């Protein structure tokens, strides 16, 4: 981990202290939710969700900020944030392919799909390609077992998938992006 600990934001004079010294407007947005949660420490997980929605991922700066606002030890905030799978600490790729690996999808060959996408794009599951184009993820169960195997590409659910059809769907969004880039 890089050491971005430029000295953490000075403790706000009151818990209602306004914003972040950087002047980043997004902290004001986060503050609003923190106030609505009445600075309750037990709202940490909800606030981590909110922060991730706002910032895209949870940077050290954001975690420190939450720790200060909720008056929690930073190690505790870090421990909680890293415990839960849905929190992410690095920026995601511009496109995503999430393969459901629930039991129904497993029985119908989801592992082949993961392997194919992983091999084709040279990206291990759970990571983003070096060029930041694609994040390959697996999900425990998206709850559409009747449609197994299920793959979610850029938020769109594709049912009854095979390795080929998944690659096609990924290629469609990825190439579209490259085409746009080439034009621009």
């Amino acid at each position, binding site marked *: *981990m890089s*050491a971005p*600990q430029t000295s953490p934001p000075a403790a706000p004079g009151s818990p209602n202290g306004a914003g972040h010294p950087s002047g980043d407007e997004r902290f004001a947005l986060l503050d609003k939710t923190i106030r609505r949660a009445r600075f309750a420490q037990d709202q940490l997980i909800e606030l981590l969700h909110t922060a991730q929605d706002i910032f895209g991922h949870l940077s*050290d700066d954001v*975690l*420190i900020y939450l*720790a200060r606002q909720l008056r929690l*030890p*930073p*190690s*505790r*905030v*870090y*421990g909680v944030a*890293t*415990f839960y799978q849905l929190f992410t600490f690095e920026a995601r790729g511009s496109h995503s392919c999430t393969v459901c690996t629930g039991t129904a999808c497993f029985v119908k060959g989801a592992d082949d799909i993961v392997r194919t996408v992983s091999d084709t794009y040279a990206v291990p599951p759970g990571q983003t390609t070096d060029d930041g184009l694609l994040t390959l993820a697996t999900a425990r169960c998206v709850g559409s077992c009747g449609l197994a195997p299920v793959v979610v590409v850029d938020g769109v659910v594709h049912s009854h998938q095979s390795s080929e059809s998944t690659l096609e769907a990924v290629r469609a969004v990825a190439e579209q992006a490259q085409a746009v880039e080439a034009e621009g």
Partner: protein
Amino acid sequence: MANRRARPNGLNVTIDGVEMSAVEGESVLDVARRAGAAIPTLCYLDGLSVHGGCRVCLVEVDGEHAPRLACSTPVTDEMEVRTATEAITEHRRIVVELLFAEGNHICAVCVSNGSCELQDLASEVGMDHVRFPYQYPDRAADASHPKYVFDPQRCILCTRCVRACAEIEGAHVWDVAARGADSYLVTELNLPWGEAPSCTWCGKCVTVCPTGALAFKGRAIGEMEHDTDLVGFLARARTEGEWEGRS
């Protein structure tokens, strides 16, 4: 008048066939230790809250279908406990083997060689070798603190340090991050320990560590000795006001 029992509200508990009197609120471990039964412990430490993670103090209790934790199970009247049955011994050995396999415990080059609770426990449970493949996790040591060293290769995640820091010192520098086999200890926001502003340099975490994961800086192989009684002493002094003077 002629109360058969030793004390009012006293309980009769049998530990490995030895009849003991106990008081409500005592744990099986408390009573067993008085009875002289050698129940091993790792995460349990007098003075800290009960964690229940290491599982080596499991014992058999009559009428229970699965083993119970000695450190956290309160005694009840007429309870019968067996602390070292064949099944319990095998469970303990497997648990210790699992600990050796998941970290990088190389006694020969450890600061705590010779005064390590894990090393002693291995002998105690008859672990002459580890049947499971070693995992060789890649964990970097943190020597950034001027006084102490943290070597996570020897960490068994017993959380004694976390609890000593949070409960006795009140600083909460340490916590556990991630989960499952990936769990690891962090200081503050995964900062190098030497840069953690909340650390008071009190060293309680170091004194309570059962292995060589936390040590005083500059100690060579076999030179580290821990003082695990310290936090129990401090906790008692605090709750019983031992420095206030008693009449």
